[in-house]
């Protein structure tokens, strides 16, 4: 672990992998949605057939042990079956989602081998798998949250950026001004206009 400080440059990571194009991305994604919505066993069978041998191969590489590899297959696919509703096709490919499920299961399994504890730390470390963090003060009601998102979606794009930056990415107004390359005063006035509009739309009870 050398040279731990680096610039954050998004261009560095903009590599794509060709082999992905050969994977039946669309079909897998649809199958996963069917599992989520209909508990569709046939769709799950298709996912199972595609992923199980690959997860096993990954597990053998990871643990050097067939029994543990089979446990990884079981853990991963159980999660896929039971948490399919947490997959959002608009946020990425099914293969990536299943990969993160497998990575988490593998991380927890390795911790279990090392510390002999059943902890499931991965759920808190990789938030991708979770439903939106709905527990923070004021945003505890999921429906309410959705309603707010909907209203925010109706704002002009410039105002949306400001609201999202301040309330969802927790940036300061100064940081946001720098990132959007506009004066702080503009951030403040956009935010004020946006909040006025939201308030008018949703009623004052949501202050």
């Amino acid at each position, binding site marked *: *672990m*050398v*040279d*731990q*400080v*680096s*610039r*954050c440059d*998004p261009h*560095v*990571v*903009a*590599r*794509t*992998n060709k*082999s*992905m194009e*050969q*994977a039946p991305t669309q079909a897998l994604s649809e199958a996963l949605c069917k599992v989520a919505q209909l508990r569709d*066993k046939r769709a*799950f069978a298709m996912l199972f*057939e595609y*992923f*199980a*041998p*690959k997860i096993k191969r990954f597990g053998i590489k990871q643990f050097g042990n067939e029994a543990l590899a*089979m446990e990884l*297959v*079981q853990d991963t*696919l*159980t999660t896929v*079956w*039971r948490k399919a509703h*947490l997959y959002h096709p608009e946020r*990425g490919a099914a*293969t*990536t989602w*299943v*990969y*993160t499920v*497998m*990575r*988490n299961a*593998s991380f927890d399994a*390795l*911790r279990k081998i*090392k510390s002999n*504890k059943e902890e499931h*730390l991965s759920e*808190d*470390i*990789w*938030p*991708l798998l*979770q439903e939106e963090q709905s527990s923070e*003060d004021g945003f505890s009601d999921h429906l309410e949250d959705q309603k707010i998102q909907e209203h925010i979606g109706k704002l002009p794009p410039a105002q949306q950026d400001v609201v999202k930056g301040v309330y969802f*990415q*927790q940036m300061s107004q100064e*940081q946001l001004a720098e*990132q959007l390359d506009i004066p702080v005063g503009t951030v403040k006035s956009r935010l004020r206009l946006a909040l006025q509009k939201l308030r008018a739309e949703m009623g004052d009870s949501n202050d």
Partner: protein
Amino acid sequence: MIKHHPSEQLLSQYSKGELPATLCMAVSAHLDFCSCCKDKVAALELNQASSAFGENEGTSDLDDFSDMFAQITQNEDIYQAKPFHNEPLSYQNKRVVLPRAIASSSRSKFVQLGKLARARLNIDDGELRASLLQIDASGEIPHHTHTGFELTLLLDGEFSDENGSYVPGDFIWLDGKHHHQPVTMEGCLCFTVVNSALHFNKGLSKLLNPIGNLIY
């Protein structure tokens, strides 16, 4: 503006689940502040997913799995997420919501020494120790060198050292080559991960130094 980020290597190890738990927590917490690194991790996961799942070769040993399939699908329950209540942490008359990866771990009470206070996270991670560290306004940590490594993630407030000033989200990795003397004007709250085994190698001087003991 966050200027200090985890290295490409750390992000890659994080996305593969190959880092020790406490460092995973630190990177995860950094991602809560830094959408840019978050995008990088998403890109890495996409790449790894395609190398693990991309190629489409024969699946001859499918029969091995039929029992497992039956067993998994027998359970029709949908997973109900346990609500995670993230209780804000009170420090220096402020309330701060900690990143989930850090907040979810239990920790000891804060132990105070002068302007420093430290709470250890209760997580077994080999020779790594993770803590929350508070420094009161106008506090400083005496000049010190790192024998192992010290990772500091600034969670709230500000501090500065010889290399500049830091804002929440900054991910500061220091090892034996570096020495520094952090000072804070307004006070700050940090998450730290240190490698204690290497520290102990340094011997008596640190053990005699109560501040050294407190922060490590």
